[in-house]
């Protein structure tokens, strides 16, 4: 029972990261029809940014917690700025040319990983976090690493604030309307392109948060971490239904929990295969994912 609980909480922690990445991907795709392959780069900007600020800017701060929080904040800001710039400089000029937009993000992801390797090498960098995060809390006999709680709580906060933002603010309304019918929003005289940059920046922050949390989860940051997480986020987005935040959240949990359970109860690696199998089954039964948004209609 305690093993099962540990697996569940760890699975939820992993699902939290998948959701953070998938939510941005899903919003960007839903609004703009862009499959953002550079999302892995956004994750890396968050994790490497936090690591760099922590090692170079805040190395004088004595409280490790404060140092971690401050550098994470700057890491998130870097993620948002980077993502916004990518939209403005690389995506916007190719407006409506979806294939070229995908290609550009592919090129960016490859060049960016190579740049990280060139600057900081292939070796993982240790990620300094408060010791408390690596201690365990005992719940019903299960020793659960504390960072899992942080991951779950962060994702829950992000999910809640995204929903609030999308449902209660004017910009959220524009984005939701844009996902439904972009042409009509434009016809009403609203500049949808501002929403594009905004959605990219939001996706960049969410991915950067995932980057920081992955640094905590894996204890270090390395150049290809972002891309590896991205693949499962893609699976989550397709299973959840492109363009749906709620769908992404549910799918993230299903994928991560399935992965954890089968990796433990069957054998390591089987979980990853089962997730892909799950994707195949979902596509055969419901090609549009759980949430049933229109998949592929814009491509």
């Amino acid at each position: 029972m305690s093993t099962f609980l540990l697996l569940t909480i760890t699975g939820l922690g992993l699902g939290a990261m998948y959701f953070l990445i998938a939510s941005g991907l899903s919003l960007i795709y839903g609004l703009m029809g862009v499959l953002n392959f550079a999302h892995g780069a956004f994750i890396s900007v968050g994790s490497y940014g936090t690591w760099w600020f922590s090692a170079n800017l805040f190395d004088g701060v004595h409280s490790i917690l404060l140092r971690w929080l401050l550098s994470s904040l700057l890491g998130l800001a870097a993620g948002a700025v980077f993502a916004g710039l990518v939209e403005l400089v690389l995506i916007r000029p190719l407006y409506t040319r979806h294939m070229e937009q995908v290609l550009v993000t592919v090129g960016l992801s490859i060049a960016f990983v190579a740049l990280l390797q060139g600057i900081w090498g292939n070796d993982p960098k240790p990620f300094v976090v408060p010791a408390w995060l690596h201690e365990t809390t005992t719940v019903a006999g299960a020793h659960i690493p504390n960072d899992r709680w942080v991951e779950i709580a962060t994702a829950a906060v992000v999910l809640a604030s995204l929903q609030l933002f999308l449902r209660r603010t004017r910009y959220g309304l524009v984005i939701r309307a844009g996902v439904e019918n972009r042409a009509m929003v434009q016809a009403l005289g609203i500049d949808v392109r501002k929403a594009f940059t905004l959605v990219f920046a939001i996706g960049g922050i969410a991915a950067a948060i995932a980057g920081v949390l992955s640094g905590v989860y894996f204890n270090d940051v390395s150049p290809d971490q972002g891309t590896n997480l991205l693949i499962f986020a893609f699976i989550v987005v397709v299973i959840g239904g492109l363009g749906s935040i709620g769908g992404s959240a549910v799918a993230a949990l299903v994928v991560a929990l399935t992965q954890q359970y089968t990796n433990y109860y069957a054998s390591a690696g089987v979980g990853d295969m089962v997730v892909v199998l799950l994707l195949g089954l979902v596509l055969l039964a419901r090609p549009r994912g759980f949430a049933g948004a229109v998949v592929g209609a814009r491509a």
Partner: protein
Amino acid sequence: MSRRLLVHDWLIPLVVFGVLAAVPELHLSIPKLFDQPVSSPGTMQLLAACVLFGALALTYDLQFGYTGLLSFGHALYIAIGVYLSNIAITDWHWSFWEGVLFTMGVAFMLANVLGFVSMRVGGIAFAMVTLAFAQAGAVLALKDPHHWTHGEEGLGADYTKLPKAFVGILNTKNLYWLALAFLAFVFFVVRWAVESSPGRVWQAIRENEQRVAVLGMRPNLHKVQAFVLSSTLAAGGGIVYMLLYNGSTLAVTAPNFTLTLLLMVVIGGAGSRWGAVLGGILYTYLNDRLVAVGSSSTVEGLPHALRTPLEQPLFLLGVIFILIVFFLPGGLVGIASRGRPSGLRRLQDAIRPEPTLTAPQEDA
């Protein structure tokens, strides 16, 4: 068949492949391009890799450039060729040709099944689904549940099972010729396929899938066809890869492996046979040689901030790729046709004369 058609369709490719085939026997030495003489094993290995990637890029172009299918999982089928042929001879002690037949059969069947499943979704979702399937293959090769692939160590081929002509450093020339023969084979198969009537439908799907459906044809059936042909050819390329590198490593299973094929095709020119081949050859050559540029004395003298990116071939190739997407949508072969579209069109008209035409038309 008119004489011009003969020249265009057969003479040009045969001359190009003939010249490439003669390269190892010419005993050239081009110090600027290659460190060692061209016929030395080191250079032959590089050239063989270039030619092989030209062929692999062409198999990818068949689904991407000609049919409009953006797959991120092409590496899966190459990896099947690389691994399965090797597992058959090294782990199961089969003969080489049994291994080849078995590998091709498995690749063909798998491409049919996975092609059918992934065609359930279109466009971008298709890209993600193919990526996921390839990732499953990558995990399988890494975790190695049956002790066949040897995970991160890679699987060295049992050389006693390989054809004698392809074993040993002195036979690198033969590997080059093998890669070149494979390229020529893929080239003519792709040309035959895209000019057949299903091939025309593939290109129509790329242009406008809805219209194809409205005309009463079944786009999905044709897309699976293109996917299966492309994937099976890729598995064949995987076998050549296994011979060229004397075994199998995880590099071919990585998602980035497909992305490099995409880069090659777009850099050379998507939807063009020579473009894909040129892109594959050029990319592989640059990826190898830019490392040398990065450690050259000119770059050593540069400040650190400039030097770091220049030492990373993939960074440079990624940037070149982005620039080509922005400014040269036709790829490198697009340059050739850019300045003189009317001339090219005239040429094409001349190549395919109307049968009813009795007198040559005068130029306006």
